[in-house]
């Protein structure tokens, strides 16, 4: 199957609003575009509107106003074509515990118009792909959380969809299962599948996404590649720790060339010298050279870059879960 | 054996409030018996014309004790279901960890059943009034009926609690539901004993509920011919004491084996 025309957006959202009873706007005037072939990470805390957006894009919920097209088709007027083009793995994937993995895959095949023999072959192929061949004939009721998520992913792939929606695919998984799922998503993307991923884990967005959108209060608050987003909050910090606090001023003088030297904070550690520099890690060798020329003995040099969490905090005023202790206050 | 009335009352109140918060527990106990009553009272009222049917003022009053006993059966069963659900959810373990006597846990649950049954019976008696039920037995008859039903509910609750404690399975408790009706139908719940099919009439002799239904009929109508209050009280008390002991024993077994 040919991948989507790279010029045509895989997902195109314009002024999308979804209002629930009581006037609560879970999605509140959202504009968004996902290009064919990319992995788009959609980041937000619980209740930010992620799941509502995914449900609209996958034809499970109708928008109150605005429009959304997926794979070139309108999600309301052309829902059937959208359904044929997308694969969906929803959060807290419910899988019938009474059926075996293989049966579920074959059933999914029938739902997507695969002929019996083809569905059978595809089921074996996918079980193999997600590493469930031996478990394939056992009932799903006995699967672990990681196995279920892998099966769920396989189910979303049965009809070789152009656009894959993954709603918090690794929430609640252990690190090993998470890494395995990430590998699989990457390799699917390499094969040309566009992936729309929601997550509340920064690491996941950072590891997988070509571009990241941050949603809060039903609006898209920021969007871009992880690097661009991080650069927006601030330049990386070069942190030099000198052996003798008396040398600190000399060190500041030496590093002036590299960027903006931060003044010594009163009550801070006197041996620490901080320089904001766009050059990031590349600033380390010249820094060492400059310090050496002035005869400043150095204990350590390190570079600290802003994280997506800093971006998130800057954009929404709150921190995401998974990054230290979550602040419970909403944005 | 010293009792802990305050613990028992607290547990009983909690059992009762849970019952009223869960619609799926409330519907069957309050609504189902009334539906059956409506259907039977209306669908079979021509039975009064049958030969051998006792002369009664109101057919509705005659079948009402069947509904009251059905309510008591269901109140007992739902308390077993609620107990099983407490066991599955782990709440019961928390109770076991509390410094209270084990017997109080059983008695508290049954106190809730008792309270539920009193409310239910009063509700049935009231609802039937505008539809033409009459209680010539007066306040004493009404009070006696409420007591009989409540003690019977405790008796059924004891069996249900014993099963719940032994199995801890919610789905098993729910599938017991039809068997409640076996107990109901092997008593002359809605028809005079003399007019049941002979096999059933013979069986009814061994069903304690037979005496409860008949006693309550007698009490409501103020006519001891219809049933002896003493026999009813004896049957229900005997049932309650025996099954409460069974439940206490089941709890001891549960603690010993788990």
């Amino acid at each position, binding site marked *: *199957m040919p991948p989507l025309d790279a010029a045509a957006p895989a997902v195109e959202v314009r002024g999308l609003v979804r209002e629930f009873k009581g006037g609560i706007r879970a999605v509140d005037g959202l504009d968004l575009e996902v290009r064919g072939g990319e992995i788009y990470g959609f980041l937000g805390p619980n209740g930010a509107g992620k799941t509502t957006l995914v449900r609209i894009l996958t034809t499970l919920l109708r928008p109150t106003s605005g429009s959304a097209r997926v794979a070139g088709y309108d999600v309301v007027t052309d829902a059937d074509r959208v359904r*044929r083009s997308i694969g969906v793995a929803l959060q807290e994937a419910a899988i019938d515990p009474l059926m075996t993995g293989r049966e579920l895959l074959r059933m999914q095949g029938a739902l997507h118009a695969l002929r019996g023999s083809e569905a059978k072959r595809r089921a074996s192929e996918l079980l193999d792909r997600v590493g469930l061949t031996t478990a394939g004939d056992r009932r799903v009721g006995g699967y672990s959380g990681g196995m279920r998520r892998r099966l769920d992913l396989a*189910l979303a792939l049965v009809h070789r969809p152009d656009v894959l929606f993954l709603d918090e695919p690794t929430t609640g998984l252990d690190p090993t299962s998470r890494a395995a799922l990430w590998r699989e998503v990457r390799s699917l993307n390499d094969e040309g599948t566009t992936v729309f991923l929601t997550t509340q884990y920064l690491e996941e967005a950072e590891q997988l996404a070509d571009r990241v959108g941050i949603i809060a209060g039903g609006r898209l608050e920021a969007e871009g590649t992880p690097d661009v987003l991080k650069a927006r909050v601030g330049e990386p910090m070069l942190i030099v720790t000198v052996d003798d606090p008396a040398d600190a001023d000399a060190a500041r003088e030496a590093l002036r060339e590299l960027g903006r030297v931060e003044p010594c904070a009163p009550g801070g550690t006197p041996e620490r010298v901080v320089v904001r520099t766009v050059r990031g890690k590349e600033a380390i060798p010249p820094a060492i050279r400059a310090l050496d020329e002035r005869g400043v003995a150095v204990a350590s040099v390190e570079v600290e870059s802003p994280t997506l969490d800093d971006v998130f905090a800057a954009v929404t005023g709150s921190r995401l879960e998974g990054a230290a202790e979550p602040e419970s206050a909403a944005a | 054996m010293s009792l802990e009335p305050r613990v028992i009352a607290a547990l009983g109140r909690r059992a009762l409030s849970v019952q009223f918060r869960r619609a*799926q527990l409330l519907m069957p106990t309050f609504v189902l018996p009334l539906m059956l009553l409506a259907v039977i009272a209306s669908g079979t009222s021509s039975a009064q014309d*049958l030969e051998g049917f006792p002369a009664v003022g109101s057919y509705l009053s005659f079948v009402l004790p069947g509904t009251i006993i059905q309510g008591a059966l269901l109140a007992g069963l739902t308390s077993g279901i609620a107990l099983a659900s407490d066991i599955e959810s782990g709440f019961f373990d928390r109770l076991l960890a509390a410094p209270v006597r084990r017997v109080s846990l059983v008695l508290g649950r049954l106190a809730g059943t008792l309270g539920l049954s009193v409310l239910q019976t009063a509700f049935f008696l009231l609802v039937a009034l505008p539809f033409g039920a009459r209680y010539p037995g007066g306040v004493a008859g009404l009070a006696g009926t409420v007591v009989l039903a409540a003690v019977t509910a405790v008796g059924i609750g004891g069996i249900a609690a014993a099963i719940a404690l032994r199995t801890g399975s919610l789905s098993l408790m729910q599938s017991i539901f039809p068997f409640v009706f076996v107990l109901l139908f092997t008593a002359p719940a809605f028809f005079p004993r003399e007019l049941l099919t002979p096999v059933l009439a013979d069986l009814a002799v061994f069903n304690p509920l037979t005496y409860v239904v008949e006693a309550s009929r007698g009490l409501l109508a103020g006519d001891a011919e219809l049933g002896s209050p003493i026999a009813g009280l004896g049957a229900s008390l005997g049932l309650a004491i025996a099954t409460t002991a069974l439940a206490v024993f089941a709890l001891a077994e549960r603690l010993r084996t788990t």
Partner: protein
Amino acid sequence: MASAPALPAAPGTLAVIGVLWRRSLNEVVRVRGALLPATVAPVVFLLGMSGQFSRLTGLEGFPTDSYLSWIVPLSCLQAAGFAGAATGANLARDIEQGWFDRLLVSPVPRPVLVAGPILGAITRCLVPTTVVLVVGFLLGAELTGGLLGLLALYLAATAFCAVAGLWGVFMAVIFRTQQAGPLMQQGVFVAVFLSTAYTPQALLRGWLEGAAAYNPVTYVLELGRQATVSGIEPSLANTWPGLAALGGLLACFGALAMLGLRRMGA
């Protein structure tokens, strides 16, 4: 869009109904004892009610002298109705747990998503219906209607099962919670009993007299009674009201179920 990618074909309706039918049978085939309560309850009611009220046949105007024969079709209908309503409870569970979303995002026409489970219910209801019939027969109910009568009884039971199933589906898509389960069951309960369940129309008194006359289930019941009641012989006159009632019920609840499904936003 000139370069629109070729879409996979629409799925074959029969194939999808087939897999969804098989899946709904899992509920009883793969769960030990799952059919037991659904079978025992109507049998208990059959035995209990016939034991309590068998003398009613002594009343003037009762068309048969075997009360068991009178209520066997009732118990069959009840059993089939409960099996049908279970479809709603299962669907509510599927909606609650998110499984139904999986079906909704597939390119399958919405009525097909409901047809599979309804067919499953019809298949499942054959077990309790047959058990009730056999128990009734063993205890002395007479099969006076012969093969045609039996056919009418099974037709009444299976179609009523489908009606109850659609009612359950409607409740499930409206409430979307398993808590609505008792509501589905009790709807069937009321519908069945507000009919000529225990006594023929001529012996009904008061409000039930009117309710039963207007209740379509009365006519479905009479359709089934051609199997066992000697006073209601198999004939076209006894058949068409039941068929018409079933047709109307199916159309009505089918439309409600579809409307409810649309209202879910899918």
